[in-house]
């Protein structure tokens, strides 16, 4: 019987093996072993880990994606880098899910950050496939981001969440002990920090844009990052710690999540790069999940499953088209990809059995998000079909079909209202949506300007003090000069002045003539006699 500790060790060892062998066979093996181990009832052998319901789901999605990657990345460069980070990504997500010790949870959480950063850097700067954006100028910025810019933006944004999580978890650990299952209620400050961490990770407003520029990564990475790992860590954190949070957190999560759900859906409508459509859609669905995560955790879990399967498949389907047309803006889609996009849409809006299970209990406002979904995915379906039957379609169609036999329900009639959104598929370009409400301007212009101003100020102050310290060297010289002068004065007084004085006095005395002495002696005697007479000594 495999233990969870052993499975995690296998996952990280596979990452190392793939890094060195640049193949990716270890990734397939690790995913299979992990999934089999979990389904076979693997259990923790130390108190550090605890079973988690999403662990098998993540392993299953990962397995489908690594199989797909073998086809997608066949002609790509830097495969050791790609496979190594993929392995770290998977291992970190599982570590985050299974951890019950706060430090292990933090390690998993940060491992996700660093692996997604590495994966975004997979394509070289200058490789057309690694760019995001159309190169136009709008809002004072150029809408084109190379992988190094995207990676930097991603890591800086999510680090805000990671730092917040460290402070929150650390404070809780100090109060209640290291094991999360022993923890009691969190204070207001800790609750706010945990919400911030979840929002940054799940690309909720205002942290949304890193998720869109993260499309610099190869499509399998997007498929993994958007479906089961990374962004999902946000709402899963809320599911893990939700019962401990302050009461007001429910409302805040709802407001931010619902706002992101609608705004993300609208942004997706405006995008022309299919990966960006799906990325904005992810922000939207993560918003929906975040909104319900604290109110109705069971509902949130079902949404995580349905969205995970659908979004992974959608990315792989779009990736199929990108792979076939060698363009970030494919003008035609393979038939299998189109079928997958249609099925993915049905899964997301809740018409397929797995989707229905997730959506039947969802609040009514989510139908608006579903309508937007039909709009932006319908737009992809309108494009022409190209004939390609490479084996890439097997893993993504499997992800859309198989879950319906495991998780299912009959869709409630209200869900069909989503198809009203079909009209949106014929909508023309809306500049403000295409420019993502100009949110990237904040990240490209405003935030850097504030930060640059800050460091320049510090640099100027530091330089001024440093300079003044260095120019104070002459001051030291002045002190030295003063001391030297006083020393000279004393020296002269002692060794020159006094000696000369005595010498002059003695020379003066030595130069006097004898008659002066006799006269002085006579006067002295006369004085003594006069005193003696006056006192009457002779009487």
């Amino acid at each position: 019987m495999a233990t969870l500790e052993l499975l995690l060790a296998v996952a990280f060892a596979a990452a190392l093996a793939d890094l060195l062998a640049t193949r990716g066979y270890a990734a397939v093996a690790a995913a299979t072993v992990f999934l089999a181990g979990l389904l076979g009832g693997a259990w923790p052998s130390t108190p550090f880990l605890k079973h988690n319901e999403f662990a098998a789901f993540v392993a299953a999605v990962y397995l489908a994606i690594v199989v797909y990657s073998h086809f997608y990345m066949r002609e790509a460069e830097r495969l050791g880098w790609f496979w190594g980070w993929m392995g770290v990504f998977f291992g970190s997500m599982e570590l985050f899910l299974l951890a019950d010790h706060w430090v292990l949870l933090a390690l998993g959480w940060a491992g996700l950050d660093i692996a997604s950063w590495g994966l975004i850097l997979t394509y070289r700067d200058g490789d057309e496939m690694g760019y995001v954006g159309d190169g136009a100028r709008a809002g004072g910025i150029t809408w084109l981001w190379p992988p190094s810019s995207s990676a930097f933006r991603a890591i800086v944004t999510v680090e805000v969440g990671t730092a917040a999580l460290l402070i929150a978890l650390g404070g809780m650990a100090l109060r209640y002990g290291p094991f999360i299952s022993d923890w009691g209620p969190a204070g207001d400050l800790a609750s706010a920090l945990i919400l911030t961490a979840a929002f940054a990770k799940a690309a909720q407003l205002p942290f949304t844009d890193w998720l869109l520029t993260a499309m610099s990564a190869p499509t399998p990475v997007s498929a993994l990052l958007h479906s089961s790992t990374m962004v999902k860590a946000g709402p899963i954190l809320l599911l893990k710690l939700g019962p401990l949070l302050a009461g007001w957190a429910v409302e805040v999560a709802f407001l931010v999540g619902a706002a992101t759900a609608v705004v993300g859906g609208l942004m997706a409508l405006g995008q022309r790069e299919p990966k960006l459509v799906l990325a904005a859609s992810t922000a939207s669905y993560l918003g929906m999940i975040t909104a319900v995560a604290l109110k109705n955790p069971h509902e949130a879990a079902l949404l995580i499953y349905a969205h995970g399967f659908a979004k992974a498949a959608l990315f792989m389907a779009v990736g199929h088209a990108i792979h076939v047309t060698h363009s970030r803006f494919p003008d035609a889609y393979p038939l299998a990809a189109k079928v997958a996009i249609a099925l993915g849409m049905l899964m997301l809006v809740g018409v397929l059995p797995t989707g229905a299970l997730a959506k039947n209990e969802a609040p009514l406002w989510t139908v608006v998000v579903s309508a937007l979904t039909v709009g932006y995915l319908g737009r992809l379906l309108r494009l022409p079909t190209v004939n390609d039957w490479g084996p890439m379609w097997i893993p993504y169609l499997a992800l859309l079909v198989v879950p319906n036999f495991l998780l299912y329900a009959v869709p409630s009639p209200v869900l069909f209202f989503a198809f009203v959104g079909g009209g949106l598929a014929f909508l023309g370009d809306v500049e403000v949506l295409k420019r993502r409400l100009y949110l990237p301007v904040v990240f490209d212009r405003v935030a850097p300007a504030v930060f640059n101003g800050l460091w320049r100020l510090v640099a100027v102050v530091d330089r001024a003090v440093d300079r003044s310290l260095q120019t104070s060297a002459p001051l030291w010289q002045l002190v030295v000069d003063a001391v030297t002068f006083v020393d000279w004065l004393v020296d002269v007084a002692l060794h020159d002045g006094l000696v000369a004085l005595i010498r002059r006095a003695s020379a003066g005395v030595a130069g006097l003539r004898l008659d002066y002495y006799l006269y002085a002696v006579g006067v002295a005697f006369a004085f003594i006699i006069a005193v003696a007479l006056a006192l009457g000594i002779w009487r």
Partner: protein
Amino acid sequence: MYSDIFLLATAVSGALAVAALRLGLPAALASVAAMLLFLIPGRGVLGVLPYVGEVAVAVDFYKLPFLAVSVALGLIVAFYSPPYLWHLGAPRWYYGVHALYVLSFLYIILFENLIFVFLALELSIITSFLLIWYFGYGNRRFVALLYFIWAQVGSILFLIGVAISGTFNADVFTAGGLVSLLVLLGLLIKMGTAGVHFWLPYAHAEAPTPLSALLSPVHVGLMAYWIWRLREGAGWPLEALFIYGLVTAVYGSLLVFRETDFKRALADSTVANMGLLVAAASIKNVEVSYAATALLFVGHAFAKAALFMLAGLYIVSLHTRAIGEARWDRHLLAASVLGFVALAGLFGINLVGKAYLAAGVPQALYVVALALFALVSTAVYSFYLFNQMYRAGEGRVEYPAEMYAAIMASALAPYLLLAALPLWLH
């Protein structure tokens, strides 16, 4: 018993270090290797001196990480040095001074008598001063003097404070008011925290790179141990010190962005990390404080040494110190990713250290906000520097294999040490 081991280790490593003045690298390596003897746990009294009192040496669990890192980096850097010193045209006696410098690190931590700690500080200052004076860059004599004077001011303030306190044994050290502040100020000047850091960027950047790879990672950081050790008796205002540490972390991080010189950027980053160490050493809960201090010290030491050695590799192979001119192949890319990610505190034991530091943040809104900014900014500059290097582009770089091996040994350490995690998870 332990005093015998101490004397033996001192005799062997000291004699070998002196021999290294003539014989060079092999003797220096043997000398530093002999210092492993110091790591045997125990306590012994070397003697009792008039006025100074009992001169004790001790190694316990708490001292071990600081000692082990000193020896490990002493060996790695010695192994790294030959191609660099050949490039500098430095004579063999460099290695002898290097070994004595490493020996001074061990003494700084080993001695329980604070007067002897001061003497160890002096040994470290004199040895490092000599190496900057003879083998530094730029206006090396000016920088060496600048370093010497600041370091002397620091160690002498420490000595004055200790002397006035009248308690020379670390176990019973008690001081109050101005006297305890003198000791603190002395230690902070030696660390180079905000306000008393002006010597640090010059010294660490203009020192010969193998020296920078010990000065910045180990030497300044060792003071954090003494802040942690003496805090009970000194009665410093810990919360204020914690906030001052965070301010230093932010200040140092912001300084990094002004640099185009690889070594100066790393030196500014040291200011930031010393801030984190000061904050770690002043966490209220003494065990959490120790965990944060030790983990941040060890993680920072290996990451920073690796990156300084990487900067040195570029000096030797590309004759440049500008980070924007550093080309990389996949091996160098791997080393820089490992180094910068650990320095950022995003993974490796540096992350665990940051986590324990975060655990010590007092639950007040303004401190939490400051801590958040400090944790983020110390991560952001690392990725900023990495991006500078990454965008400089790929290229063929010819470099000696032993330099690269040393860099990798140091860069991998923060990750490999995660294997020791169960030690402090309980």
